[in-house]
């Protein structure tokens, strides 16, 4: 059978298959009686309607069609499905108002859904009396500042006001004036959430500098607006989590970095070892650190000079040597040495390293370790004949490496259309190297997910053609 070149033929074919998943894949391009036929195929049996209402891949148009359902179990699943589109959420809310006896738990699900239109969130915020639903609105990241302000007024006398303020403090939509409003009379955790908020005003940062609570300090110290003096004070904090956060602050001075390089806490030194502004003296100190995780972070750091990488490549800990091999600036000479490392995890890092040249990949392709061969399969410098050989590996991870390799050519990938692992066949549907006729070959795949993805791909392709 030829590949349908228009939506109508694709839909007719989907109807002919009688396959619920294929029907779902083409639903959005179906019109008129064809669409009705698809819907009766998908929703005719209650178990299929329930399945589609819950499935994480169900297309939005199908969920939209399902939102007219009067089946409470279907409605509950739609309310919980993160893909349920905005219009369907409106339908579900209207149904709640009109048809059913108002269910508090369903309203709460609508209130927390990220596709619920702002008009409905506003309606819940203004008129609903269920505290849990109001709390759910305050948690919803798509809510706007106006709705949050309405809630602020209504929740002020509620016994859940503290919890509400915490949600507002963590909500990305909260504006700086609202943050200022909730900061002063809140507990330390809420103040800390306010301080870490992207919209936190400078005035609060300056105020928080005098806050003694360690929970607040931990959030405060990562703020780039802190002055050198404040950072110098926080470096001396007794709390290692505070010092750890200071160590990641981009505004840290050279003097303070020097101080933290010798910090008592391993966690602090690990944080320092990953910084992009280390001096030669810092690096010298950290490369001999007693904690191998510190040396590992240093070995991964792209600013580290070649000489240091050479030294770290001799480290007794395989994790450190592996980190050297993963360093984007690791010289080829070092990769050559590490490709012969006794530890397969180190050799694997060389195999995954995109800088590793073709001749190195030829040697690593002789390895027997699955992680090393997975790296070889992933590497863009691996020759096609090696990739072709790896497509016959009994190890799924290795075959998957070939599929993920952007340089794998069509002829290399073709045998993988018969791969026993369904996920591999599914991944190939999106491959830019395969032709349409190769993908169409998967339309009768025994796995329902593969069939769904194939038809969805062809629907999207037809849509692109129409747009062009």
């Amino acid at each position, binding site marked *: 059978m030829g590949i349908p070149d228009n939506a109508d033929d694709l839909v007719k074919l989907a109807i002919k298959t009688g396959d619920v998943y294929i029907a779902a894949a083409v639903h959005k391009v179906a019109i008129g009686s064809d669409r009705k036929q698809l819907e009766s195929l998908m929703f005719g049996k209650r*178990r299929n309607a329930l399945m589609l209402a819950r499935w994480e891949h169900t297309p939005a148009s199908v969920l939209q069609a399902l939102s007219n359902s009067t089946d409470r179990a279907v409605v509950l699943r739609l309310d919980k499905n993160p893909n349920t589109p905005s219009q369907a959420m409106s339908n579900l809310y209207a149904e709640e108002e009109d048809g059913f006896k108002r269910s508090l738990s369903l309203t709460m699900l609508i209130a927390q859904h990220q596709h619920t239109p702002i008009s409905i969130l506003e309606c819940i915020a203004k008129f609903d009396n269920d505290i849990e639903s109001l709390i759910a609105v305050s948690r919803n990241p798509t809510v706007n500042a106006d709705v949050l302000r309405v809630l602020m007024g209504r929740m002020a006398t509620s016994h859940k006001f503290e919890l509400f303020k915490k949600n507002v403090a963590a909500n990305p939509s909260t504006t700086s004036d609202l943050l200022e409003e909730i900061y002063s009379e809140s507990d330390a955790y809420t103040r*800390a959430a306010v301080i870490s908020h992207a919209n936190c005003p400078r005035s609060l940062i300056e105020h928080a500098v005098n806050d003694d609570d360690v929970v607040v300090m931990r959030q405060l110290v990562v703020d780039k607006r802190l002055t050198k003096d404040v950072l110098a004070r926080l470096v001396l904090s007794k709390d290692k989590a505070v010092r750890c956060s200071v160590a990641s602050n981009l505004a840290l001075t050279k003097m303070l970095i020097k101080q933290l390089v010798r910090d008592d806490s391993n966690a602090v030194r690990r944080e320092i070892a990953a910084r992009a502004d280390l001096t030669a003296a810092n690096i010298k100190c950290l490369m001999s650190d007693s904690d191998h995780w510190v040396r590992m972070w240093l070995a991964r750091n792209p600013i580290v000079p070649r000489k240091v990488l050479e030294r770290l490549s001799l480290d007794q800990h395989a994790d450190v040597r592996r980190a050297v091999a993963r360093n984007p600036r690791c010289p080829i000479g070092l990769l050559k040495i590490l490709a012969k490392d006794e530890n397969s995890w180190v050799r694997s890092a060389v195999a995954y390293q995109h800088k590793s040249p073709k001749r190195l990949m030829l040697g690593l392709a002789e390895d027997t370790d699955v992680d090393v061969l997975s790296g070889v399969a992933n590497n863009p410098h691996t020759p096609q004949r090696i990739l072709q050989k790896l497509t016959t590996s009994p190890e799924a991870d290795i075959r998957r490496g070939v599929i993920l390799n952007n340089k794998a050519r069509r002829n290399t990938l073709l045998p993988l259309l018969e791969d026993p*692992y369904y996920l591999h066949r599914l991944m190939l549907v999106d491959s830019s190297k395969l032709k349409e006729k190769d993908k169409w070959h998967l339309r009768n795949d025994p796995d329902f997910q593969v069939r769904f993805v194939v038809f969805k791909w062809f629907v999207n392709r037809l849509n692109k053609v129409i747009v062009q």
Partner: protein
Amino acid sequence: MKILVAVKQVATLDEDFEIRANGSDVEEDFLLYDLNEWDDFSLEEAMKIKESSDVEIEVVVVSIGPDRVDESLRKCLAKGADRAIRVWDDAIEGSDAIAIGRILAAVAQKEAPDMVFAGVQSSDQAYASTGISTAAYLDWPHAAVVADLQYKPGSGSAVIRRELEGGMLQEVEINCPAVLTIQLGINKPRYASLRGIKQAAAKPIEEVSLADVGLTGADVGADSSMSRVRRMYIPAKGRAQMIEGTIAEQAARLIQIINEFKGA
């Protein structure tokens, strides 16, 4: 030489479901069916023996259930099983694990295998007794929770390792034929090849009645079972509580709870 592998199509559930009006089970529309996870490992163990043996070995899968069970049996055929048998009669409805064991034993007597494998338990009912009751009806030796098997086809005994508490293994020599219930992780189950799936679609599944294995309706069903389900229900919620607050606050509370449990 023959290995009989008893498999079951189990039901899985989502978080939202309804109980049937009579309270006996979950409403059918909410059940999704698949091959029992343990049975994948049992079949793989049989296939490993078949593929590494010099002698001809037939792997036969058997299941008890209505038409829908064919889908799971075809999955087994696609993975390399030679034959599939499905036993069903409406009288079987309501049978407990012991009655199911009686039917499987009757099939085994007819098939005369050298070994019978079953999963340790089914993921939906978890009685963990079907394999053992099969052995009892056959009057064969049995071993449960088998995590390793050394068996040479035709040999009068096998060496198995059974998984015990505390990470211990118990090495046992067992006379054959025997019934073994296979534990998860004993091997790495294969995926069926596309060719295998296509071939399996064309293979017949032998439909066997109770009479075919020398049983009658009086031998099975709820009346002949030693246990009967009275009701299924969701118990009242226990002491679980949602941890509320900011992320840092939730983390602090979790640490506090862990420390309380540790006695710190």
